[in-house]
């Protein structure tokens, strides 16, 4: 493999991986920025999305698109119940309580997943129309990865429009910037929290389902991938949709570069550069949440 081919391969695989990381983590960035809650169990929603998609595809043999949307809707609905019943109780509690609650949720989710689906990693059956390779001049690329990149970019643009251009986006930005003032001018933050939490979880579920071919769906999923989701959010900054996009690209491409160029070191250089980066910019690339 010559240099330019290696480079293309790193960039392409990295970008596809980045999009999966982005779709899963962007919800976390928004909910953390908005609700100020350390929800480490976000990955559990992604795992749930992955397993649900597998079940819907294999058992009910639904078409891929419908199954994906349905799994996202189910996860979103369930997440609102959790938000109202559990998370809402620790909004005002310390950060440690939030960490504990979400670690507890991770354990419960992992145990349920292992009970229902067993310990062996499951793969999502990609629809026939998205399998195979396509020749783009330079070389051939797997169609599914191109589909991932396109979906990631589409979701990014959509979120950008919603946050920057719509009424609800305005409410979200206002609440992130100053919750007390937002409440004072009549924004119902309680409903807003639930809506945003549901959307964030739905995105996680979509990311988990779509990314099933790059991040294997196993009961250990929420814990094993926790570090990477958190890296995207902490490097990207809280409360934005563009920050995590850049961060996911950095992490995805960096990760695939490490895996291809220095596989024996694993993620060592990723963690090391993370330290360097956060030392220089503790708030991340684009941080919307003001230090108080």
């Amino acid at each position, binding site marked *: 493999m010559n240099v330019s081919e290696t480079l293309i391969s790193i960039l392409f695989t990295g970008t596809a991986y980045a999009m999966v990381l982005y779709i899963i983590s962007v919800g976390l960035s928004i909910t953390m920025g908005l609700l100020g809650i*350390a929800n480490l169990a976000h990955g559990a929603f992604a795992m749930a999305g992955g397993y649900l998609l597998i079940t819907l595809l294999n058992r009910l043999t639904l078409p891929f698109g419908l199954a994906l949307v349905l799994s996202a809707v189910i996860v979103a609905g369930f997440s609102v119940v959790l938000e109202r019943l559990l998370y809402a109780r620790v909004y005002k509690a310390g*950060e440690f309580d939030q960490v504990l*609650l979400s670690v507890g*949720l991770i354990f419960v989710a992992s145990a349920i997943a292992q009970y229902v689906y067993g310990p062996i990693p499951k793969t999502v059956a990609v629809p026939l129309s998205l399998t195979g390779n396509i020749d783009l001049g330079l070389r051939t690329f797997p169609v599914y990865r191109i589909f991932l990149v396109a979906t990631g970019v589409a979701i990014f643009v959509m979120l950008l429009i919603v946050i920057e251009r719509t009424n609800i986006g305005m409410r979200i930005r206002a609440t992130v910037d100053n919750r007390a003032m937002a409440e004072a001018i009549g924004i119902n933050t309680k409903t807003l929290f639930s809506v945003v939490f549901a959307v964030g979880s739905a995105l996680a579920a979509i990311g988990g389902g779509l990314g099933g071919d790059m991040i294997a769906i196993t009961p250990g999923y929420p814990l094993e991938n926790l570090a990477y989701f958190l890296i995207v959010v902490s490097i990207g900054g809280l409360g934005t949709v563009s920050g995590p996009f850049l961060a996911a690209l950095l992490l995805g491409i960096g990760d695939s570069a490490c895996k291809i160029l220095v596989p024996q070191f*694993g993620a*060592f250089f990723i963690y090391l550069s*993370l330290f360097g980066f956060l*030392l220089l910019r*503790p708030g991340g690339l684009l941080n919307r949440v003001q230090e108080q």
Partner: protein
Amino acid sequence: MDSRKGQAASFIVDSHSFKVWELTPWLALAATWFMLPTYLPFASQIIVMILFALSYDIVVGYAGIVILGHTAFFGVGAYTAGLLAVGGWREPITGLICAGFAAAAVGLVAGAVILRTRGLTLLMLGLALTLLFGELANRFAGVTGGHDGLQGVEISPIFGRFEFDMFGRTAFLYSAAILFLAWICVRTLVNSPFGRSLVGIRLNPVRMQAIGVPVWQRKLIAFTISAALAGVAGGLSAQVTQFVSLSVFGLDMAGAVLIVLVVGGRGRLYGAFVGATAYMVVQDVLAKDDPVFWLFWVGLILIAVVLFAPGGLLGLIEKVAGLRRPKAAELIEGQGQSPSGIEYRSQQ
């Protein structure tokens, strides 16, 4: 104001004096020695867990530094003690001291970096720290044994006389002695003015800074001490089990110490004792048959503790027994509930 000062002073002096019920853990250890001789190796593992949870309590329970990667220091201690023994330095006590110093050095450097951040970033960096060490230990498998673990950790007799026997008697007494020393140190530390200032920092760092406490510096000192103790716990684990595996840097271990502390009761000193014993015993009974079932219950217990019993088992016992804390404690701890410190004016 003077009477308040007096109350606070007498509270601190009072908290140093020993109460009768503080004998409980030591009586329990003596009872284990005489009544459950076959369980001594298991008891030594519980002691290691107590030590580790104690170190975690200093950081999380007292200073309020929310970090998930404390296993980094436990692991550094374990590999230091283990590698020393494998390399030929088999004297246990100096080995343990080296483990403590190595972990403290890592804690000092890492703390100087990561304690500048807070919230999510702090959480993230702590996690990255332990994963970083895990990758390193895995990478240098020639030295550490990699996934097979570090084997052949042989320890020479303590003081050149007491040999480690196959029934774990010496190991148990050795662990118990280390725990006793650590307990004296930690107890003195958390009840000292320095320890009280850590509690103050947890409750309201802004106000502590405002009254002239060097918050960052105190946090770093507490972090380094805690790292040293975690290193001792790790070193002890390596010496007692004669084995170090990569899992010392794993997230499972990080989760375990979190659960131990929270179930026992954080910021309470004895939470580590109660939590570690409860966790290890229940795990020994339940997890053997069905690890999935065990994981499920651990998760539920964590959620329940957060929602209904933030003080853990000890908090529940305090409630049931009606043992209210002394008034001076409320005086000191009850004030800083507001995170912003805005309600200053109303108290004057």
